[in-house]
């Protein structure tokens, strides 16, 4: 089974993912592609405790993500891919990650960012990433939990 959800969330694994998206998509594995986390065993061990025992978690660096995704695919896992920023998502898509729908859950506020939804704020480079996705056949959906309506940025027709 391929990826059931690709999501940008600056908090990576947290309540919205574990309690709403995992049941909603019937996922059985989480793939977290994040350089900082892959290099920090302390944060990784805490994050592992956040995941129900029945769900598998893979942590990897961004450049390891493609083989990890392929391996999960081969073993028939229904995976959710999590990255922390729009830039990381672009990197993975360019490297060949197979998703045409990208969910944006949380991007925190910082000075100079523009509000897209109450929990998603875009910096200028995020708008660039959004344009890149739309022109490469990826629909971007800003939606915290499946219960929310969300804002959709459809892919441009070829």
């Amino acid at each position, binding site marked *: 089974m391929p990826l059931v959800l690709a999501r940008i969330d600056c908090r990576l694994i947290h309540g919205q993912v574990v309690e709403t998206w995992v049941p909603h998509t019937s996922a059985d594995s989480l793939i977290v592609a994040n350089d900082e986390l892959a290099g920090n065993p302390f944060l990784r061990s805490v994050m592992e405790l956040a995941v129900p*025992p029945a769900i598998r978690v893979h942590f990897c660096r961004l450049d390891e993500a493609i083989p990890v995704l392929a391996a999960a695919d081969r073993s028939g896992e229904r995976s959710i891919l999590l990255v922390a920023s729009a830039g990381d998502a672009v990197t993975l898509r360019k490297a060949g990650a197979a998703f045409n729908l990208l969910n944006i859950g949380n991007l925190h506020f910082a000075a100079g960012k523009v509000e897209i939804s109450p929990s998603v704020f875009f910096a200028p480079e995020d708008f660039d990433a959004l344009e890149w996705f739309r022109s490469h056949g990826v629909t971007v959906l800003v939606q915290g939990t499946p219960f929310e309506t969300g804002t959709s940025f459809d892919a441009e027709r070829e």
Partner: protein
Amino acid sequence: MTTQALSTRSRSAVWRRQFLLQGCWNYEGMQNVGFAYAILPALRDFYANRPEEALKAVKRHLEFFNTQPAMGALILGASVRLEERVAAAESDPRAIGTFKVGLMGSLGAIGDSFFWGALRPMASVAGALLALLHPLLGIAAMLLFYNGVHLIVRRRGFDAGMEGPEAVVGWLKRAALNVRTDDRKLLAAILAGAYAGVFAGRFFVQGGGFYHALASLLLAAAAVHLFAVLFRKAVSPSEILSFLLLVGVLILWR
């Protein structure tokens, strides 16, 4: 320069103030004001005669912060210890931000699953079932079931945090909240089954025979299954209720 130790009074002030972590919940910084408010008594102790540094410390804690409120106690306790080290110049102030940001998502997930996804449903159904016997019994049971665990997790989490950030992972592993989550969820499902059974039995029309009873049970079970499927497809309870309301109005119209 010597650093003041944390007074017992301030320690209990921090403990009390953590109950107001969400007192100024806002979309930009979420629990930021609440966190700064809670840790303030400790900062006042540590930076007693250094207003400049006290100011910097307060600003650190006005950065974005959000976690499940009961799990905030653990992060708060550990942050007090980290601030103590920073005040004594034993640690880099940036470590505090990294620590808080690194933990808040994971602890949020642990707390959301355990408290909102498991303990609260369990306490709710138990309370609702007992309320059928007597309302006050139901309320008392629900509050006890929930807060018995809730307050212990807050207390022990706070104490574990106060032992220092190194103790956090050990405590979380011993507390094994993710395993307990599954137990509570199973218990909640059993109680919810009983609740559904009681009401399905109550609405079963008197005087019908065995097959009538069987048919009502199957119908009720099918309804529960249908609702659960709708929930998984992200239809909200409000939408289902609105639909039923519409059906009711149409019946009246007829």
